[in-house]
């Protein structure tokens, strides 16, 4: 409240704009909304740095009580946590690269007019069909099983290798680039691969940053494929681990259940695990944030 009032009065002096009572009310409401958006994140941080006695007494709100690193040192003793963290890192790298390569290639080929690439509309219809219609949980599981991906990293990468929504966003972005660029490149003797790599990719960086952010976030955040395609705990990605151990510890189906359950979870320990799980998103988010609004509005809205 003070902060906004101060900032507002500075701007008021500079620009000579007048703040009336309505403006103050609106700013206050928006400030409360912003705090509500951050509150759960701040609360879980506070909890993860508090002593377990303070946590179980329920007195932790937004500041840590009896500040301690103990929950984090406890994580270090949990080999499954680190293991699943690295499964997630591997998944994001491999899946992100596969998504990136396929998205860019497909979006570029599909960005051609029908007159230049006659099969374009056929491909487009297949893609839109696949976007809207899928086989459902059980048939998909059976295909993944019969292609031998169960308990491999590829089970988390291949079924989501083509992010169709991202392909469409990027394709629309490519179609918005000036036609003359392409003609000039053709006159200079450029083939399609060179055109894609040296002209289209550099020009589409905001859109590519956006779709890459989406695909990285998707890979980091998904837990369900890890749950159904991974039978062994050591193959589970981080979100699946959290889901199994923090949210539903009663439903662990894994073979080494007893061993896992011995690492009894406390409230602060769980909070620390959740913090580490969301940390990568909190770290990359500010850097990519500025791109995505531009990317999504340019790519998805057409005239």
């Amino acid at each position, binding site marked *: 409240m003070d902060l906004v009032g101060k*900032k507002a009065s500075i701007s008021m002096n500079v620009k000579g704009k007048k703040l009336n009572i309505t403006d103050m009310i*609106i700013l206050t409401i928006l400030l409360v*909304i*912003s705090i*509500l*958006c951050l509150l*759960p*994140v701040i*609360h*879980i941080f506070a909890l993860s740095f508090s002593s377990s006695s303070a946590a*179980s007494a329920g007195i932790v709100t937004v500041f840590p009580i009896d500040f301690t690193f103990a929950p984090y040192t406890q994580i270090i003793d949990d080999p499954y946590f680190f293991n699943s963290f690295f499964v997630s890192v591997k998944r994001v790298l491999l899946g992100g690269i596969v998504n990136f390569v*396929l998205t860019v*290639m*497909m979006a570029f*080929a*599909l960005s*051609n007019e029908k*007159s230049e*690439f006659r*099969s374009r509309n056929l*491909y*487009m219809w*297949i*893609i839109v069909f696949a976007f809207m219609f*899928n*086989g*459902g*949980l*059980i*048939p*998909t599981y059976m*295909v993944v099983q019969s292609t031998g991906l169960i308990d491999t990293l590829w089970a988390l990468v*291949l*079924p989501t*290798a*083509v992010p*169709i929504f991202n*392909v*469409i966003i990027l394709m629309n972005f490519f179609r918005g680039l000036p036609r003359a660029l*392409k003609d000039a490149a*053709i006159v200079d003797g450029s083939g*399609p691969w060179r055109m894609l790599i040296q002209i289209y990719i550099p020009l589409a960086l905001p859109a590519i940053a956006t779709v890459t952010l989406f695909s990285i976030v998707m890979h980091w*955040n998904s*837990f*369900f494929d890890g749950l159904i395609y991974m039978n062994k705990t050591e193959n589970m990605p981080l*979100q699946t681990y*959290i889901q199994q151990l*923090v*949210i539903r510890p009663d439903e662990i189906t894994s073979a080494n259940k007893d061993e896992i359950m011995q690492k009894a979870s406390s409230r602060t320990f*769980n*909070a620390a695990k*959740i913090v580490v799980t*969301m940390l990568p*998103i*909190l770290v990359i*988010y500010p850097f990519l*944030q500025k791109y995505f609004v531009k990317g999504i*509005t340019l790519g998805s*809205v*057409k005239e």
Partner: protein
Amino acid sequence: MQYKGVTIHYHLMLLPGMIILFIYNLLPISGNIMAFQDYIPAKGISGSEWIGFENFTYMFELESSRRVFFNTIFIASMKIIMNIIVPVTFALLLNEVIFMKIKRSIQTIVYLPHFLSWVVLAGVLIDMLSGNGLINKVISFFTGETMFFLASNTWFPVVIVLSDVWKEFGFNAIIILAALTAINPALYEAADIDGASRLRKIWHITLPGIAPTIVLLSTLSIGQILNAGFDQIFNLYNPLVYESGDIIDTYVYRTGLINAQFGLATAVGMMKAVIGFVLIILSYRLAYRYANYRIF
């Protein structure tokens, strides 16, 4: 300008993606024939017995599957309505802020929850809503009572809808904010000269200006009416709230993969897919007719 012999490269660029789409997206659709079988995993699709529409008739007789369809539509409609009202209101408020720096900081903060997973958020919410959690501390301070939000069939759908709106309203506001910037500023200047108040300007210029976008978003959301949010409910629910919270996707997961009733679960999933497909086609046709919207 045309150049020769290059279409082969375009086919090559599409080939790997198309193979993957075919195997993991289109091929499973054929697996839906299990819905017409008494599927036994050991015998496979070719060996299992054909039973016609028995799975479907059984599905309609089951009390639980009717409840599941109702819950799905109820929760999804509430989410759709709230996910239009809240982002529009928020965008209108934000649009009234004249200081760009404050505006951008607020935007950055409210987008954030969209990028956190439901696993993480469920972990946070379960803690905050527990008997000993932050929210109950506040409630018991005022009323002296403790509420069990995630164990009550009255409160569970409310928690689901509100937490979804909380997570997504900032992100959903992006498209509304984009529509707001497209409104011709001359209209506001003219209104200022005519002495229009703030509310009048919102009512006569801003709202008509974003009306097409609101219509478009509402139309497109028709196609999502059977998607009540698997990740969210799966991570927040428990047997106590199956009655109010169980949706098609969670039901298919439990009957199919946990209880191994593959035929029945596939039938339920197929029912959802068919209705959903029809609704999506319908919503895209409406969007094309009334808002001239095309996906490509």
